């Protein structure tokens, strides 16, 4: 029994290490002064903690601007996606299941294409619409890419709510949009939270579209900004700053998840037990 327990914790511990090592490495590199980053033998903890890199990212480069760009594009895309998906899912819920699933499958078919394949056509369209270097180009394409997933999640969540709720609401005098906004959405908060977080993470991490659609430096999003961080010459790669930027990048995601944690856990476990 005891051996089993020890083995279990060993296993958990090693998985934990395996998963968190890259992040820990990023963090400690970010905190090392430049000369320590390349020194041999490798030190696993910074000897002198320096906030130089973290500061440089903001002072020597417009990293703050990148974060703002990402927040605007990702945040707006998330809101738009979840809003559009909930209206669609609400309509699908009113249909009989077979028909609703057929429509939903068509949406999913759109999501099969890898985004990289869409870069050129999307760029051409955005160019025609004069939306290159405009937040709207990212917001619209992120929404289109995430809509099938969000629709899938929300349709499943809405279906779980009993039909009689809507009918009771109709008799009470709710309009159909009021049923969506005042009954269905509040009751689907856990699923909405999970959907929003996952969509936001996708947008926050997305690289190839934002690289293409936002070519001017002032419009870079965080992943593009990090990839294009460069040193004083081609031979210098500013590892310290890159790691500082990466470490900073994870903070908003952690904050979002922490804020919605209660609902996310509810959402991931909903339906697990009756009640």
């Amino acid at each position, binding site marked *: 029994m005891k051996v089993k327990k020890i083995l279990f914790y060993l296993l958990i511990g090693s998985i934990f290490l395996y998963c968190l090592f890259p992040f820990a490495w990023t963090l400690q590199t970010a905190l090392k002064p430049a000369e320590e980053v390349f020194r041999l033998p490798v030190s696993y903890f910074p000897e002198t903690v320096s906030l130089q890199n973290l500061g440089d990212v903001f002072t020597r480069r417009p990293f703050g601007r990148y974060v703002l760009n990402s927040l605007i594009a990702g945040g707006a895309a998330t809101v738009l996606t979840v809003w559009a998906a909930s209206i669609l899912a609400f309509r699908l819920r009113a249909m009989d299941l077979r028909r609703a699933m057929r429509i939903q499958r068509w949406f999913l078919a759109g999501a099969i294409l890898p985004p990289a394949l869409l870069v050129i056509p999307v760029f051409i369209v955005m160019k025609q619409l004069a939306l290159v270097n405009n937040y709207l180009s990212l917001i619209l394409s992120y929404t289109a890419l995430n809509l099938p997933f969000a629709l899938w999640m929300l349709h499943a969540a809405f279906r779980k709510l*009993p039909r*009689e*709720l809507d*009918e*009771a*609401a*109709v*008799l*009470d*005098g*709710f309009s159909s949009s*009021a049923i969506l906004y005042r*009954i269905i959405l*509040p*009751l689907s908060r856990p699923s909405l939270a999970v959907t929003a977080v996952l969509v936001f993470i996708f947008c926050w991490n997305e690289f190839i579209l934002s690289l293409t659609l936002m070519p001017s430096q002032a419009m870079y999003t965080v992943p593009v900004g990090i990839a294009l961080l460069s040193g004083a010459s081609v031979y210098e790669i500013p590892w310290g700053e890159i790691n500082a930027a990466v470490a900073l990048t994870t903070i908003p995601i952690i904050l979002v998840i922490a804020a919605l944690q209660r609902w996310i856990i509810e959402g991931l476990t909903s339906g697990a037990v009756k009640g």
Partner: protein
Amino acid sequence: MAEIELKRISKGFLGGTVAALREMDLKIPDGAFTAVLGPSGCGKTTLLRIIAGLEQPDAGEVLIGGRVANHVPPPERNVAMVFQNYALYPHKRVFENIAIGLRLRRYPKEEIRAKVNEVSRILRIEDLMERYPKQLSGGQQQRVALARALVRKPEVFLLDEPLSNLDAQVRDSTRTELRKLFRELNATVLYVTHDQTEAMMMSDFLVVMDAGAIRQAGDPIHIYKEPGHRFVAEFIGTHRINTVAGRLENGRFKSTDGAIVLDTMIRKTGDVLMEIRPEHIAHGSREDITLEGETLLVEPMGPTNLVSVRVGENELKMFLSSPPRVGEPMRLSFSSRKAYFFEAQSGLRL
């Protein structure tokens, strides 16, 4: 209060392949407590939903208080419905659950509070106002659902199996309470149930449905005494009626196995079913038709016993307070006037 009239209502599902209601005509008297009784899937809930306006009939007219209501949207029909699973809003407190219908109809705040307080007093849920539905017991949830219907003072109440989710004890007391409540309100109530005891005990007017059609409608006691269709005879009654297949010729009934023979006033020839209720069969030869049989099974029910007796190839059930032992021979009798005869093919009463 209002009378409800349905004229040749039809409704099909899945593109008309499944008929839920077939050309149904029905007039529900103003102020009557009407029970709609039938097995599950007979279309009784569909009927309720059509009256509420949640479902549109494929053909026919719905009249509420003399006005055609087919195209009147549900909230304007002045009907309230209590759902089988109550359908309370889980994210709203009890007070809000009851008040929301009035709020959406833009009643002034004080009036809403007064009305909600009044119905909550009637239903004895004043102390639950600040709770959420999931913090209530089944019986309490049911009362909140009723309060939500009552508070709007509708012309018609539609209740869809409101007692079926309650345990037996609460169900009995709630049944009596409901009856009293609606009698005081003098409201037109349509009460859907598959429980014939409930239907018999509660209703002033009973509608028996089967396979999308009305088999019989009228006074419950009359329906119990004079069933017009085989289905009604078999569905109504606390214990299933005894059925004997046989043939009628020149006013004489003879069961298929020849064990039961009796004379009737019916001058008709053909295959029929004779049915007699367990409560109408007596021990000994008190009545005019006497039969000899063998005791098959005794099921104690407390004050009495349900005894199965084999007569020829038929099994007849009857009530006896002091039953014979299993296997003993037994004499039983019934009055030929208490036996019903139904045409074997159509099930219609002869």
